[in-house]
Structure formats: structure tokens, C-alpha cells
């Protein structure tokens, strides 16, 4: 079953950059009766295609798996409360925090080494090799194999260049059960897209389904599109009474133009173009003459 939605969402806590209490979000979910790794691949490709369709240049989809960390934590018998403290430290890549934690809870030197390495296990595919070197338990090894399969599948279809790996990325371990991923765009300091696999949620509603999905923050997206100068190729502006002509121009542009809907003087249009780093202006004068200006 495939579901998509787009609408308002709410949250009480708004501690982080980019957070709003009421925000717009659009997303997809895929539900299967049995876990299928193909669903992971499919969801990731849709995420990549979504980000590609924005036409932005520098972005990445960061992927990881919560079970890599879980495997270590289980094999070391770390209890649930400390589990979450440690998860947050690793997610923040807090090197010193991890060290203090391991001192306080008397973790072995080997454990400290593993968790510190985990915080630095990010990059491209060579990270798989590094991850395998430290994986000393079944659960962690399995998660590497799964991610490697996913990565190789994406490579076969030519999507791997958009993927980076981060074994130290750790979202809520109560919610996520496998693959997790985050989309980052240059110029926006916080994530634009977030998702993962959550196979336990449906059973809380008496329905055993395996599930994977993601959401894009639309308010965040608007923030970045406003800054993403190359998004518009030219500006369309008009003098009073020529709104209809402006509309037909914007329709012709197929999304490549920015329409300035208030009738403003050509000087102001030039200023806006400069501000947004747009090189071309189409200006419709009140006598209906269409001027094309390069700035």
C-alpha cells in the first residue's frame, strides 16, 4: 500500500533551527505485509527524485541504519536509559561526551573506541569497509550488508552520486527499526527531508505492517528556494493594466521565471534582479510593449 499526504502538521517543541509549531509537510509512506528491502530502495529513489526535481545543485541524501548502533549497545548490555543518552552523544558526534560517558559508566576501552569511531563513520562507500572492521556482532554486520545492498542497487540505477553514508546518524531508536535517511541542501543549515523504516508502529494499532517513508518540510523548502538564486532564469514584471500579458509570459516560462506581482518601476525590478542574482528581465510596459533586458 502506498500513501502520500500534504498538509499542516503540529509539534509542541520547537527547539531547533528551522522548527515551527505549525508547519507544512508533504510525504509518502509504503506499507508491506512483509519487510522487503526493495521498498527501502524504492523509497530512497523517490526521495532522490524529489530533491532532483527542485533543480538545486549541491545536496545529498545521507543514509544510515539504527541497527548498526543497536547491535553494539545490545551486545554490551547497555540499559535503555543510558542507551538513549549514548545515542544522542553519537548523533551529535560529541567526541568528548562519548569519552566522559564511557568513563562514568565504566565501559571498556574497546567499547569507547567503537563508539568514538562510530561518530566518525561518515562519507562515501569506502566507509563500508571501515564499518565492517569494527562490527563485532551479528546485528551490526547485518545492517551493513543491508545498507551495502541498498547502495549497490542505487548504483546500478545510477543514483549513488546523490548518496552519502553516516553510520553515526541516529534518530529515535524507539520509532525507527532499520534504514534512516536525511536530506541536506547547501545553504540551508538544517535538514530538508527526513525518513526511515518503522516496522513496529503499525502493531500499536493492532495491525502488523512493515513501513518506510519520508517527509519534506515545505516551509524549509520555501526558505531555500528563496535563497536558491539559480532557480529562476528571469524575472517577469509589468506596468499597471498589463497583468494578463504578464500571466501569459509566466505560463510560457514553464516555471523558469519569477513573476513580480506588484506593478513596480523598472528600477525596482533591476534592484530585485540584482538581489536575486537573476540576469534577465522581461518587462511589459503599459502600452503593451515587451522589453527584454539583460542585467
Amino acid at each position: 500500500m502506498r500513501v502520500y499526504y500534504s498538509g499542516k502538521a503540529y509539534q509542541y517543541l520547537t527547539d531547533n533551527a528551522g522548527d515551527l509549531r505549525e508547519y507544512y509537510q508533504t510525504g509518502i509512506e509504503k506499507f508491506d505485509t512483509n519487510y522487503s528491502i526493495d521498498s527501502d530502495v524504492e523509497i530512497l529513489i523517490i526521495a532522490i527524485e524529489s530533491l532532483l526535481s527542485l533543480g538545486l545543485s549541491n545536496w545529498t541524501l545521507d543514509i544510515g541504519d539504527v541497527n548498526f548502533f543497536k547491535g553494539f549497545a545490545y551486545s554490551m548490555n547497555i540499559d535503555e536509559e543510558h542507551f538513549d543518552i549514548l545515542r544522542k552523544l553519537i548523533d551529535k558526534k560529541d567526541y568528548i561526551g562519548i569519552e566522559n560517558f564511557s568513563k562514568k559508566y565504566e565501559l571498556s576501552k574497546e567499547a569507547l573506541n567503537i563508539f568514538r569511531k562510530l561518530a566518525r563513520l561518515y562519507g562515501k562507500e569506502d566507509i563500508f569497509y571501515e564499518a565492517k572492521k569494527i562490527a563485532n556482532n551479528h546485528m551490526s554486520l547485518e545492517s551493513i550488508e543491508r545498507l551495502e545492498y541498498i547502495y549497490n542497487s542505487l548504483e546500478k540505477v545510477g543514483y549513488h552520486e546523490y548518496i552519502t553514508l553516516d553510520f553515526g546518524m541516529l534518530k529515535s531508536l524507539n520509532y525507527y527499526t532499520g534504514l534512516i535517511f536525511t536530506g541536506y541542501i547547501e545553504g540551508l543549515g538544517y535538514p530538508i527531508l527526513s525518513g526511515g523504516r518503522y516496522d513496529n508502529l503499525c502493531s500499536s494499532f493492532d495491525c502488523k505492517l512493515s513501513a518506510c517513508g519520508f517527509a519534506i518540510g515545505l516551509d524549509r523548502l520555501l526558505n531555500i528556494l528563496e535563497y536558491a538564486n539559480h532557480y529562476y532564469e528571469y524575472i517577469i514584471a509589468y506596468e499597471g493594466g498589463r497583468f494578463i500579458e504578464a500571466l501569459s509570459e509566466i505560463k510560457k516560462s514553464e516555471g523558469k521565471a519569477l513573476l513580480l506581482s506588484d506593478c513596480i518601476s523598472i528600477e525596482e525590478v533591476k534592484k530585485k534582479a540584482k538581489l536575486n542574482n537573476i540576469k534577465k528581465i522581461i518587462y511589459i510596459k503599459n502600452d503593451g510593449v515587451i522589453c527584454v533586458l539583460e542585467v
Partner: protein
Amino acid sequence: MITIALPKGRLSSQTLNILKSTGLTSIDIDEDSRKLVFIDNIKNYKFILVKPFDVPTYVEYGIADIGVVGKDVLMEVNKKVYEILDFKIGKCYLAIAGPKGKKEIIYSKNKIRVASKFQNISFEYFKEAFNQEVEIINLNGSVELAPILGLSDLIIDIVESGRTLEENNLEVYDKLYDISARMIINRVSLKLKKKAIDEVIQTIERWLDNDSKILQQY
């Protein structure tokens, strides 16, 4: 270009000294001038000077890729940034302090008033450590005045040499956390400007390693 946010004050010149001795940059920052942005065109770094409490904010929003700030500030503001390196400078500690010789009397009061610049740290600490009612009073500076003038029973503040406490007839009751300057990194920058940022991290890490070895030799 990599943007680095430095906290106005002593820490910024110390940090810049480290960056210079690692060879990462060679520019001078004149803190007495009113300039807030300094550009190293050769190495492609931009330095911005901001208030310490604002460093994590600039980094969280990605306006700065890298920031240098005390652990005390990081604990207090709790922003989503990567915290990768200990600069091992600006060493001090957070402590509970109060009037000399009155620790027992104050700790046994039914209600304790605490003045601090670090509201969140104070709240988290007392929630765990004390059973009685605690009122936290937020101040922005000269916290030592509060117990002297009767605004609070205790203070939570950073202590470096202890001289300020001494001169105001106060003493440390309990040491809470060790503090030093940390390097923080924006989450997106670490991934999208990996090469440039890795270079900064590794260069400084190498330098810090060597430096501590040299220090140990003497």
C-alpha cells in the same frame, strides 16, 4: 569558502593563535576595531566575531560552518550541531558557589534561590540533585553580586582561578562540570563541504596531539 564563528573575547585570540600555528590561516583579527568580519582570501576562510552565546546559533543555521565556543555555552543552549573537537583551551569549571562557610546552612534550607547566567544547566542540575524547592534567577553578568546583596542564596557560574569568588567573600560549594573550548560544526556543512572541513579538523587534531606530547615532555 568556510566561515568560522569565533566568540568575542579572550577565546577568539587564543583560537586564532592555534589556527595560525597550525598554518591554517595567517590573518590577524584586531578585536579593538569595530569590524566583525575578517576574510582570509589566500586560504579561503571567513571569520566572524559574535557573542559567545550566539556562536551555536550561527552554526546551527549554517551561517557559519564551524564555530568555537565554551562547553558551558553549548550545554546551556543545547543546539543541534556536531561537537567534534576539544580545543583544550579556555579551561575552567562550572560550580555552585555561595557565601564562605555557609554551605551546610544553605543546603538545608526549605527553599533555595539560585542566580545564574546558565538557566537551563541550573534547572537540569537541581532537578536531579536537590529535593527541596529551588528558584532560579536569570542574570546576565556579575553573578557574584547576587548572594552578597541578598538576591539569591547561591550562584552557578564558571570558575577559572577562583579569585573573583575570593574577593567577594564567596567559595565553591560543589564543582559541577569541567569546561573547555570546543569546535562545533554545522550538520549540513560537515556533509556537503566534507573535504574542506575534514582538513580543518585533521590539521587541528594533529596539532593538538603534537602539542600535548610536547607539553608532556617538559
